[in-house]
């Protein structure tokens, strides 16, 4: 049981991290907390469901398309809603909070209350180390998650776009002086943030089918990861994600299944008490 809890903790943790990265990215560059992050995750789930089932596309194609679609949607949202809020983090928080409710009720109207589940990529389960059976789809999700995260970090480190993002997140005005169109960059990185949520969505929706309101806990966990890891610290939120995954599962295994989801909040509050800037956050004066 311990082995399974830990394995499962890591798998869930990676997914948490993947979702949180999007939030962290947007906070870092635009100092905007996207409250509707979870709804973008859900949207991707719905898209890949639609593309795969309704349009009958190949699951992989459907997933790529969905991420693309959500990216575009994110860009539009940034352009119409977020742009006027720059510099006023609470204003953007309020706007995105309302947006999340709007999206939820829109989903309910369009897709109904039932969960929608895109097709599995793989069937069945594998016996891990002769200790326990583990769902193949989950293992697949784990690898996909790691892949996307690795890709993201590589992009940050190696490409011009990555450097642009890092530069802008440290000093917008200077970046502008170095010839970066920060408005466009904002738009793109907000889109990218949503795309990361979408990636998490398409990867996970075969395991956890999406429902209109399922985005709330997703976003919540992402926020906790970000605060835990330190606002804007990419590595921080990966570590944060893994910690949450483990804490949750071990807690459920050995303390209480009913209070499973309280553990992460407890951790959060403890961290805020001892190290407000988060595990990897730089505390600014």
């Amino acid at each position, binding site marked *: 049981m311990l082995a399974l809890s830990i394995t499962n903790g890591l798998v869930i943790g990676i997914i948490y991290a993947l979702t949180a990265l999007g939030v962290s990215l947007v906070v870092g560059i635009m100092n905007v907390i996207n409250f509707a992050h979870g709804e973008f995750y859900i949207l991707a789930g719905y898209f890949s469901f639609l593309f795969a089932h309704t349009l009958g596309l190949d699951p992989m194609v459907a997933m790529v398309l969905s991420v693309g679609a959500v990216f575009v949607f994110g860009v539009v949202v940034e352009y119409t809603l977020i742009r006027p809020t720059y510099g006023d983090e*609470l204003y953007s928080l309020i706007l995105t909070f*309302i947006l999340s409710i*709007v999206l939820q009720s829109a989903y309910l109207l369009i897709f109904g209350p039932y969960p929608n589940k895109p097709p599995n990529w793989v069937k069945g389960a594998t016996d891990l180390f002769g200790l326990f059976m583990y769902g193949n789809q989950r293992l697949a999700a784990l690898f996909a998650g790691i892949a996307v995260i690795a890709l993201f970090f590589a992009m940050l480190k190696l490409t011009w776009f990555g450097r642009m993002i890092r530069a802008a997140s440290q000093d917008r005005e200077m970046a502008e002086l170095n010839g970066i169109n920060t408005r466009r960059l904002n738009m793109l990185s907000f889109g990218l943030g949503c795309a990361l949520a979408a990636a998490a969505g398409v990867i996970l929706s075969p395991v956890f089918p999406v429902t209109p309101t399922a985005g709330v806990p997703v976003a919540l966990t992402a926020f906790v990861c970000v605060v835990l890891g330190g606002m804007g610290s990419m590595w921080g939120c990966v570590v944060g994600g893994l910690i949450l995954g483990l804490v949750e599962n071990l807690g459920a295994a050995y303390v209480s299944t009913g*209070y499973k989801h309280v553990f992460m909040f407890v951790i959060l*509050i403890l961290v805020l008490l001892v190290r407000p800037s988060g595990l990897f956050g730089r505390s600014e004066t």
Partner: protein
Amino acid sequence: MKTKWLLLFVGLAGFAVLPWGLGVYHQHILIVSLFYVMMAASWNLLAGYTGQVSFGHAAFAGIGAYASGILAAKAGINPWLGVAAGTLLAAIFGFLVGVLCLKLGGIYLSLTTLAFSEILHIVINNEYEITRGTMGLQVPGLLSEYSKLGYFYIFLCAALLTLLVVHRLIHANMGLNFRAVQNDERAAASLGVDVVRVRVLAFTVSSALAGMAGALYGHYLLLITPHIPSLDQQFLVLSMTVIGGLGSFVGPIIGAFCLEILSEYIRVYGEYHVLAFGVVALIVARFAPKGLVGISKSVWERRRQAALPAVPVTDNGKGGARRGVT
């Protein structure tokens, strides 16, 4: 000045006799509206006047409701005492949460309050023996026998009390401190403003008011459920304040009545009504961040601007900045 007070008084009197002419159904709407007035006004005290967006306001209402309800239902305490206790407990929790994260400010407060309300939810669901979980806790009423009119006047008084407290706070010297802190903490501190105290105070008071509102509401519905401290409620309160006018005294009042009545009328469209709500809130928040009040103000302003010539603000003859005609 005189006329203003007169108008206020007449308006109040008119409102106070209004329910006599209405059926129970419309009385119900009025009572619920008054509940939201309390919620929105107290949330506005926080978000509008000290710039702290709390997502836990509904949760504090929940604390008040459950504390009072449990005392009444399980320990047979008189509901009125229960309400007092609920208010107090909400204040205490508000104080604790405040102290925990107000030093962090901004986003951290929002997220921590969000976490807080989630925890509360899970606890309510799990401590089913005490809270009756989603089934809801049956609680006694405030009146010996049920009367909508009675409740209307209770809520009216409570709402007036809430508004009075808020008004005192923002117009007394403390109001200056609130706005100073919202404008620039460091400068405020350098002028002798105890920033943390000011914030914690605002947070505690507003939580207490929410607690009172929640407790009364529970004893009106005779049933306390996790819906009182839910994010949906939080959303309602937030949109009411935003649509009415964040940071203005009358804004939340207007917002609360408009949206509650509106929601009663579009309820027939079932699922659509939350959506409609959200869209309205979104549009207002995006295009008129100061809400209905802001809109009317700016219209009024423009009239005045047109009337008298803009006065140039002179500065020791250097022909410096002109007052920005915004």
